[in-house]
């Protein structure tokens, strides 16, 4: 399946842990995993756990507006997106998990 996980909580939260563990399990099961970071979730873009997920094949997106607002400069493995981009991912995904 195509699994979309949206994280709006900061990376020192329960939600971050849940998002990372679910994403890893999804990849282990050979699903397509999209991770979308918005609001305080964009702080996660400097965390190793997310970089590792990108290496394992998860597709990482973030809300550029929220990242600019928080002065976060993501690396190449994360793709700049928007709320409209998130909407497109919702079209594509079979399941959506919203964590905030």
């Amino acid at each position, binding site marked *: 399946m195509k699994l979309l996980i*949206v994280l*709006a909580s900061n990376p020192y939260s329960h939600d971050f842990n849940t998002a990372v563990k679910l994403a890893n399990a999804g990849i282990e099961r050979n699903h397509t995993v999209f991770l979308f970071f*918005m*609001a*305080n979730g964009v702080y996660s873009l400097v965390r190793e756990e997310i970089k590792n997920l990108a290496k394992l094949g998860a597709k990482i997106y973030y809300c550029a507006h929220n990242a600019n607002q928080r002065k976060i400069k993501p690396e190449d493995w994360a793709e700049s997106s*928007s*709320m*409209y*981009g*998130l*909407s*497109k991912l*919702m*079209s*594509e*995904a079979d399941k*959506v998990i*919203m964590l*905030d």
Partner: protein
Amino acid sequence: MAKKKNIVFILKSNPFSWKAFEALRQAVGASIEHRITFIFLKDGVYTLTDWKPQLIGIEPIDKSIESLGMMNAEIVAEKEAVRERGILFKDWGVEIHIKDKDEICDLVKDAEVVITW
């Protein structure tokens, strides 16, 4: 081609943080290609009262609610929550549907995607 889905957004906490702002922004973004229902549940109904986000450092939500109205999103407030809190809504220039828990239950059941905040 993008698939149009029936998406329900639920805000169940009060709006006096950034949650309401971000949830509404997300719903607006989704309203271009999906059928949106935005449900204010429990303390979430405070979002529709006349409150002043800028006083507590939060961006106003008026434009987002206006956009949802223009995109024909259905805006729903939980009847029981509104009654218990004895609150009055501000005129947001959009129609607000007051629905009871049973009706809201049906909306959630019919949704293809449910986004909770």
